[in-house]
């Protein structure tokens, strides 16, 4: 199966559906170590992405990601807005106007997304943020590059799940949770969870 603009739009719709299903879970994760809005922020943003795609789907996968990025930047309203927005924007730029994506293009987009989040938020692996899910996911996709896009995304989703789980014992060092210091220990990071959820949805939509 190829990966063109229509498939990319389907991926984002699948992501939006997951976020909607897990809205309350993400809110509950954000409550003890944040301000209980991550699920609301993400759902507002992805619902807006779906509305935008309902009006018109751009002609290239990069175009689809770009419109998703600008929508998330405008609508999310919390830290996740500029972070996911930058991730999608950098991925879109990397894809340029390619009409169909191959595994190297998907890998390049994932790498650009991770680098974008790091550049924007200055978090490293171990700071208990979405980077703890995204970074190992990109590494896993790289290992699976020879096996095709579906395998890459499946590997990325598995690694992101593990990475998200790994935030539980950590002291948060970025974002709102960092104000809690030691008291952030014992809580799974909501942004890492939403990253894992999105990658799982993407993998299932392609697979």
């Amino acid at each position: 199966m190829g990966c063109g603009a229509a498939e990319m739009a389907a991926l984002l719709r699948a992501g939006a559906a997951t976020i909607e299903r897990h809205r309350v879970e993400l809110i509950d994760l954000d409550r003890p170590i944040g301000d209980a809005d991550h699920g609301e922020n993400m759902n507002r943003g992805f619902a807006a992405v779906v509305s935008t795609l309902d009006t018109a789907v751009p002609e290239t996968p990069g175009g689809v990601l770009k419109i998703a990025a600008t929508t998330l930047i405008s609508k999310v309203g919390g830290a996740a807005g500029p972070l996911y927005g930058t991730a999608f924007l950098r991925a879109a730029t990397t894809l340029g106007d390619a009409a169909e994506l191959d595994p190297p293009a998907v890998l390049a987009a994932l790498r650009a997304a991770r680098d974008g989040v790091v550049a924007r938020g200055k978090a490293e692996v171990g700071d208990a943020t979405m980077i703890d899910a995204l970074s190992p996911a990109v590494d896993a996709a790289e290992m699976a590059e020879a096996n095709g896009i579906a395998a890459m995304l499946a590997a990325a989703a598995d690694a992101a799940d593990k990475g998200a789980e790994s935030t539980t014992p950590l002291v948060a060092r970025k974002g709102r949770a960092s104000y809690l210091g030691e008291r952030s220990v014992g809580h799974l990071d909501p942004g890492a969870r939403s990253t894992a959820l999105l990658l799982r949805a993407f993998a299932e939509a392609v697979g």
Partner: protein
Amino acid sequence: MRVGLVVVSHSAKLAEGVAELAAQMAPDVGVHAAGGLPDGGIGTDFDAVLAATQAADTGAGVVLLYDLGSAQMTAELAVESLTDPGSAVVVDAPLVEGAVAAAVAAQGGSDRAAVAQAAASAGAGDGARQEEPAAEQRQADRIELTLANEVGLHARPAALLVRSIAGLDADVRIRRGDDEADAHSVLALMSLSARKGDRLEITATGSQAGEALRRIEDLAERNFDE
């Protein structure tokens, strides 16, 4: 044409309050508030920040200040989306002191880099310095004067003083007793807590040191236009 300011906050009230405070000391500076979400909730609204940044630019550029980390990310993203990203800069500064210091610097005609610098250094050295300046040997012009105005070196007189010497090539310091403050910083001057009747020693170095001292002397003689 002065540098414009944007106060980016998660809270509309906080942004407006800080902008109000900063504008009071800088009547000719555009201080724009960009706080909260469109529905009134807590958060940062990219579109509002971008619009405020565009509105704040009257040709001399813009300095943006922020409250919490994610407001910084939104502000940086807004600057990157400008047609000329070089025209605005996001500065890491204490929000309240930074906004006041930046507004005064902008009022005095400082350029964008200097306004950003004023914000960034606000609060850092908490004003009055205890230690002696190292280069005591350096030839410095020096005057002494007694404050005769009612409120002393309070906010408004301090702002007038900073403004009177803005743009001169002179490094000016004011000493009251054991405390010394940078005369280019309103907050530093205020932290001297100099009151009516206090004796001040003012030193200046640089090619326009004499002019700077003359202007300060003038201002004191006019009782800071009280």
